[in-house]
């Protein structure tokens, strides 16, 4: 089972996103590495049980961020404020409090990454945007504009490759970054703008007005199982928070 046809992939994208955003806001309010770590584990286990994550997938997608995790930890540990000095060298200034804060923030960022992976790995982009129209009342004009625009990402890539090849065959050598900007970024942007105009005209020519009364091929709805996913995830979050409060781990960010 892959993430894209797992149980999580059939959850309404808007509700899934807002549930994850609520948990992320909760993570921002929590300032304790142990609680944060438990909330991160919740994301990982949700991914394994409902999201179709396999071990090699987890390693491939989450391990690279470990470096980022270490760097964030290091930044706060070495440059953060604190009284209990442990080690000092050059401009690095490591304190007990710094390490504590570093662990919290690094863990929090790791949790952020995991919760967003839980969303992006199990959500189809066009389903997500359709759900934004129906559940979040995004105007169809913006929704279809966004869909058309996202199609440009791979196009930009192949265009850049083409441009590089064209320059190479003509023996162009890059001198400095200004030159590179004029040679690559400018044509890419101009092409993009021209294409934007063509896409817009094409859409309008086919009768697209962007009005909210249009009809849809498929109308995503929020069903019982969507609500139950959201409720169960939030319930677990609440249990974790209560548990760590019971164990006197929990401290809030503003304390």
């Amino acid at each position, binding site marked *: 089972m892959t993430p894209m046809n797992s149980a999580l992939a059939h959850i309404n994208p808007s509700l899934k996103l807002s549930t994850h955003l609520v948990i*992320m806001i909760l993570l921002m309010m929590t300032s304790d590495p142990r609680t944060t770590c438990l909330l991160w584990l919740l994301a990982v286990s949700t991914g394994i049980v409902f999201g179709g994550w396999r071990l090699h997938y987890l390693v491939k997608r989450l391990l690279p961020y470990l470096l980022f995790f270490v760097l964030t930890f*290091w930044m706060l540990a070495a440059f953060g*404020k604190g009284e209990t000095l442990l080690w000092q060298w050059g*401009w690095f200034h490591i304190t007990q409090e710094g390490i504590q804060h570093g662990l919290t923030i690094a863990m*929090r960022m790791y949790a952020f990454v995991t919760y967003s992976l839980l969303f992006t790995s199990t959500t189809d*982009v066009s389903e997500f945007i359709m759900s934004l129209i129906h559940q979040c009342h995004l105007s169809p*004009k913006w929704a279809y504009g966004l869909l058309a*625009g996202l199609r440009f990402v791979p196009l930009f890539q192949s265009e850049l490759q083409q441009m590089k090849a064209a320059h190479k065959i003509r023996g162009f050598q890059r001198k400095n970054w200004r030159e590179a900007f004029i040679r690559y970024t*400018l044509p890419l942007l101009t092409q993009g703008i021209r294409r934007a*105009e063509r896409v817009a005209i094409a859409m309008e020519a086919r009768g697209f007005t962007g009005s909210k009364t249009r009809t849809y091929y498929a109308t995503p709805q929020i069903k019982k199982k969507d609500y139950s996913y959201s409720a169960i995830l939030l319930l677990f979050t609440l249990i974790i928070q209560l548990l760590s409060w019971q164990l006197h781990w929990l401290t809030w960010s503003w304390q």
Partner: protein
Amino acid sequence: MNWRMREVVLTVILSIVCGIIYLGWSTLSIPISALFGPVGSEWMFGIWVIASPLVAYIIRKPGAALIAEVAAAAVEVLTGSQFGLSSFFVGIFQGIGSELAFALFRYKRFTLIPLVISGILGAFGSTIYDVIANGFGYYSVKLLLTILGLRVLSGAILGGYLAKILADTLCKTGALQAYAIMKERYYGQDQRDAKKHSSSSRL
């Protein structure tokens, strides 16, 4: 406020380009910040606010700055950013900051000064987010103020000023003829820019 379809698609496309640039830029900045501390990479900050002034300068409509920054953040999320959904939050904070700058001028002036202020307020917005979520409050006050100062400077130059240069260069290619930026050059307040443009296009 009625957006035409071509303006919608243009905003999305420019946001996508900016989102891709943001992604590359963050991969560059992380190693630098680890070595030299948070201060070391803050001069690079301005690029992350460029979407707002760039799009607002071209489209010149209320809401353009906020929408552009949020759309760029959404692209970052959908293409797999290091920061995931948190870049979405950053986008909202920065976008509101940048949007404020144009609102201050009642969406009547789109010259260098509002653009630079937009970059500066975007810097404020993202620093507020970093204090809330990324533990910037744990740095000493002196360090935090240094970070903010560097961001403001960088936001003004790499955000606002660079956005103007970029858009003006794009104007010269003639690709922006149909948008508010060129129309105001011919009929509106940007007479000085118009002269510059007409002389350069004659070249």
